[in-house]
């Protein structure tokens, strides 16, 4: 929000500050305690993830066979150790990097594929729309998890391929959303006016239509992040995502699974980390959706 109060106005009447869409949205978001809490939690996790080397007490793959399966609160190992004597807190911290990194990369790929396809389909001619949307329908019909599993068995077991496989299948929702938005925005007067004065189509799409659909895109993207976090954890849990000794949270749950009856904390700690991170993301997404909703 830009405050532009001039000295003339200061003395007599209070002129309402110019309110922008984003300013309004921020005001509403600030009043949503759950969203702010979620945002702070997200920032905290992101900060810890980005400087894992400094935060973590030890490397994620350092084994100490003399101190395996230590309980929570052991001196030197705040959250205990796993079957191989690896410090759980350190693995949790490095795991945040995988979780958030994979989700962000996948979401980036979704944006890079979904937006152009939606824009071209919505603004292009009849046959371009038809071909792109038929293709989208086919990809949409593919069960996500099955595609990702097959794709990862093609690419090999590597963390960097996980977001690629996830992005390649999940862009369809965004493409459909963008296409629908373009089609409805095309009938607006400001678009017709731009057409009349001879602005080329690609310029209309990029400079007049695209900025108008930023809010639904932002909401979709924010709410998509927790879904990717879940998908990555699920893949790692099944044994197809990040390869050991990577400390993916899903993989940590999987490794703790065998010892669940005697050492439940091996499952409870990474499991809670996944759930809490997804919870914060969802709070932020819900808050953004409510704050940016023009119907309010």
């Amino acid at each position: 929000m830009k405050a532009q109060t001039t000295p003339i106005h200061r003395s007599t009447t209070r002129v309402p500050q110019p309110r922008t869409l984003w300013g309004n949205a921020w005001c509403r978001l600030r009043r949503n305690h759950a969203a702010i809490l979620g945002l702070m939690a997200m920032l905290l996790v992101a900060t810890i993830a980005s400087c894992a080397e400094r935060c973590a007490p030890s490397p994620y793959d350092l084994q100490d066979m003399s101190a395996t399966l230590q309980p929570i609160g052991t001196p030197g190992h705040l959250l205990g150790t796993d079957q191989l004597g690896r410090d759980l807190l350190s693995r949790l911290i490095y795991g945040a990097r995988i979780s958030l990194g994979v989700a962000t990369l996948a979401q980036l790929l979704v944006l890079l594929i979904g937006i152009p396809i939606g824009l071209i389909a919505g603004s292009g001619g009849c046959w371009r729309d038809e071909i792109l949307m038929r293709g989208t329908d086919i990809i949409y019909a593919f069960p996500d998890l099955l595609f990702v599993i097959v794709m990862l068995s093609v690419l090999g077991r590597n963390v960097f391929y996980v977001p690629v496989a996830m992005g390649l299948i999940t862009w369809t929702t965004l493409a459909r959303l963008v296409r629908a938005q373009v089609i409805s925005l095309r009938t607006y007067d400001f678009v017709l006016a731009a057409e009349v004065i001879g602005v080329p189509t690609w310029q209309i799409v990029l400079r007049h239509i695209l900025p108008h659909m930023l809010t639904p895109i932002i909401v979709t993207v924010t709410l998509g992040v927790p879904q990717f976090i879940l998908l990555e954890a699920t893949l790692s849990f099944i044994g197809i995502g990040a390869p050991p000794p990577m400390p993916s949270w899903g993989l940590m749950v999987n490794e703790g699974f065998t010892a669940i009856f005697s050492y439940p904390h091996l499952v409870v700690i990474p499991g809670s980390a996944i759930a809490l991170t997804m919870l914060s993301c969802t709070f932020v997404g819900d808050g953004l959706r409510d704050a940016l909703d023009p119907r309010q």
Partner: protein
Amino acid sequence: MSHYLFRRLLELIPVLLFVTLITFTLMHLAPGGPWDRQRTLPPTVRANLNAYYALDQPLPVQFGRYLLGLLRGDLGVSFSNPGYSVQEVLGRGIAATVQLGMLAGTVAVVTGVPLGILAALRQNRPADYLSMLVAIIGYTTPSFVLGLFLIVIFAVELRWLPPGGWGRPAQIVLPVITLATAPTAILARYTRASMLDVRDHDFVRTAHAKGLREHVVIVRHMLRNALGPIITVLGPMMAALVTGSFVVEQVFRIPGIGRLYVSAIFARDYPLIMGTTLLYAVVVAIFNLVVDLLAVALDPRVDTTQGRA
């Protein structure tokens, strides 16, 4: 309406064809083959096996043969289950998966919708906050984490229910709860939003003014009109059930399709991978079709003459 149904069914054919083609291509691009998992085979044996299963033919020929088989309803022979056809292998797993999915789906509808209605009627009051908190926690807890927590509590600590396996009625309780939680939460959230949208309409006020009883207004007037958006969320709900079934079968050691699929991937059992993918694609496609038909049946304003509904 029948015209619409016919066109939608016709549209399924190219979609399923492409799903088959994509899976076939990806599968054969994957490194390794079906005979790598056992001890190393002599080259002649390997060649004989390849010839027996027609794996030595060019890929387009193999794909053509597969399609021809599909037309006859033949999904091929499973490599990792010698002596069994893919139909037989899938047949053994499908009962568990379908039972689990249907039960969980029913539980989700029966608990999710009333929970959402309750929250909407008590908006911004403790009941609303509580049910939405439960819903959001249910929505954000991964099913494998939830399943493991349930095992720890009910099977290990309390010893009320078995921790896994399949066959006895007691063994189905924990998997169904685990699988139903996420769809229940999704449904509850959507029902609440949809009911809130409907609440302030004139026809609801009229219904109240006429002196109709509260539950008649809620069910006949509000819910009936709120159903449209709720129906559309059944599609994502189905996706959640499919994804969930993979995990839940793994956690509770249930011999279903999801577990078969994961083991088929590791064993490079090409026909079984193809068969399972197709099965899932058909189920999801038919489910989406049913959802669209329901939407048309519930709201006559939905236009069925234009392209996609």
